[in-house]
């Protein structure tokens, strides 16, 4: 057991998998010599050498394409797209190539590819560096999408992603890179596609992702003072979504709130709401609520971000209004 940051938990995960499987490689901008634009691949070049840990040019399309070609020919590449705001430059390789190749050729090629990317949502860096776009990726068949909210989940999910024979987009929250948690020393994975009930409760089911998980838990503490017990579920995997765990909870609580840092229309909240409604309509005492930033880009500056994004207070308020 050791206390690890989210950032180091990820480095450990990659380190362990690169040690156990020499087909695992890491490619991306600044990942090698610099140890990562955010320090999230430190030590890996030193441990595994410049053939397996390699700096690329600023060429997002070929970064992912390299991964596709290498995965089809027997490697297990991890490729890094520094910010997920840059997805628009490489999405073809993700949705038409990585996600469809196994399908098109009826399984002739496996696609054990991890696309590692980050969101800097709520860090005040402005409109081209503040987006959370998991909803686009969740719309793509053949793609898995994970987004951990704790260091331990990050480690276990990264290991699962590397071992998976399918393409997995791994979304890191930069704002959480320094969060710490105790993590056991043994080898473990956290299965992709399995939600985690972060807190048990009976009154309202709160589905929260990424940064919002901790806030939902903070809101839970507040609400508990008034005798309101919310159940906090972190799906951890965006796609395929573990809707069963969520629906089971809603059947108990009869009320649900979805909280995300991504935008509302055509977003994660809409998907979860539609699924809950479809599967548990007659258990619902109120419509599923979605708490998200308003539908606008994120301007520069932390004040804007703070105003735009859900927080423990607004989560608690939404829960109260659902109850009442």
């Amino acid at each position, binding site marked *: 057991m050791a206390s690890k940051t989210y950032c180091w938990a990820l480095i450990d995960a990659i380190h362990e998998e690169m040690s156990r499987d020499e087909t695992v490689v890491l490619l991306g901008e600044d990942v090698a010599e610099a140890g990562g634009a955010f320090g999230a691949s430190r030590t890996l070049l030193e441990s595994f050498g410049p053939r397996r840990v390699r700096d690329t040019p600023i060429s997002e399309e070929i970064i992912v394409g390299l991964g596709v070609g290498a995965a089809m020919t027997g490697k297990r590449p991890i490729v890094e797209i520094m910010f997920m705001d840059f997805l628009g430059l490489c999405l073809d*390789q993700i949705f038409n190539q990585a996600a469809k190749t196994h399908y098109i050729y009826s*399984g002739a090629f496996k696609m054990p590819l991890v696309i590692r990317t980050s969101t800097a949502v709520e860090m005040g860096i402005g409109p081209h560096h503040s987006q959370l776009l998991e909803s686009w990726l969740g719309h793509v068949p053949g793609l898995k999408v994970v987004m951990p909210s704790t260091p331990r989940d990050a480690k276990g999910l990264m290991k699962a992603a590397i071992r998976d024979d399918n393409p997995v987009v791994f979304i890191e929250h930069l704002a959480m890179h320094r969060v710490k948690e105790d993590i056991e020393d043994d080898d473990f994975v956290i299965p992709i596609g399995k939600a985690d009930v972060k807190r048990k409760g009976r009154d309202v089911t709160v589905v929260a992702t990424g940064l919002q998980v901790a806030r939902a838990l903070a809101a839970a503490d507040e609400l508990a003072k008034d005798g309101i017990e919310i159940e906090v579920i972190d799906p951890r995997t965006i796609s395929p979504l573990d809707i069963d765990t969520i629906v089971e909870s809603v059947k108990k609580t009869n009320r649900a709130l979805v909280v995300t840092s991504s935008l509302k229309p055509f977003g994660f909240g809409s998907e979860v709401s539609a699924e809950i409604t479809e599967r548990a309509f007659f258990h619902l005492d109120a419509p599923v609520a979605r708490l998200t930033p308003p539908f606008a880009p994120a301007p520069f500056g932390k004040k804007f971000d703070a105003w735009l994004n859900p927080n423990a207070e607004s989560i608690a308020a939404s829960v109260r209004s659902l109850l009442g």
Partner: protein
Amino acid sequence: MNDALHLYERMMLIRQCEEQLNDVFAKNLFPGYIHSYLGQEACAVGICAALNDDDYLMSNHRGRGHYLAKGMELRSMMAEMFGKETGIAGGRGGEMHAADPALGILGGNGIVGAGLPIGAGAAYTAQLNGKGQVAVVFFGEGASNNGSFGETMNLAAAWKLPLIMVCENNLYAEMTPFANTVAQPDVAMRAEGYGMPGEVVDGNDVLEVRKAAIRAVERARVGAGPTLLELKTYRWGGHFQGDPRKYRSREEEKAWMEKCPLKRYRAFMLEQDIDAGSIESIDLRLKTEVEEAIRLALAADEPRPETALDHVFAGEVA
């Protein structure tokens, strides 16, 4: 079969496929579009003559020539073109997609230019493996205007990847002449600026293509890095069968058909005292083989529609 005949045989196999498929299309028996390879046979065959089975090949939307030149089994390829259950991809890929991992054939593509980065990825695997494998990626001159082309040239050159970038310059991208979309008509000239060699080759001369391929493959196998080969050739048909080809003259087409790669190579073989009889027997055999492949493809079952849900994901290993 000796080497000389083998080149001919592969070209003729492609020629037969393309001609007979055009007939099938004319009879309205083909499901969808045909991107004909007619006229470009020397490109695929000349390049693949320099490759081993464990070398990689990434194709594009005009792939039949590449598949057959690299050795893909005729019948299952043909069945795939018709989208049949017996197709090499189970009939789901269709006319633009076939692959065979055992021969390093990594597939076709519906997205122009998208194969280039994937080919680079295969070349990176080859480099890691350290066994002298190479990767070839085929693309059209139209694709050379897509962003992926510059990214691929640069990265392949910087990493000295064993990648042979083969641009089949057939002068047209769909209905648009290449000359209308560039200031400089030789794609190969773009290589130097990225620090890799580029070469213009007569794409209708299979021996010239093979020579250039051998040079490029040699460089790649010894770790000297990538090469861009531009094969000047011509797409005899329209962009797809049925395209009325208003964007070019019948004279231009005729002039290029005079430069038929098969005719040219046949003349060369006869000069080399290869006897006409063995050539003819190849022609006859292939004609029949292709007829048979098409007959089988036409007769084969369609995939059951429920299979559309198979293979979305590979089985989990975690």
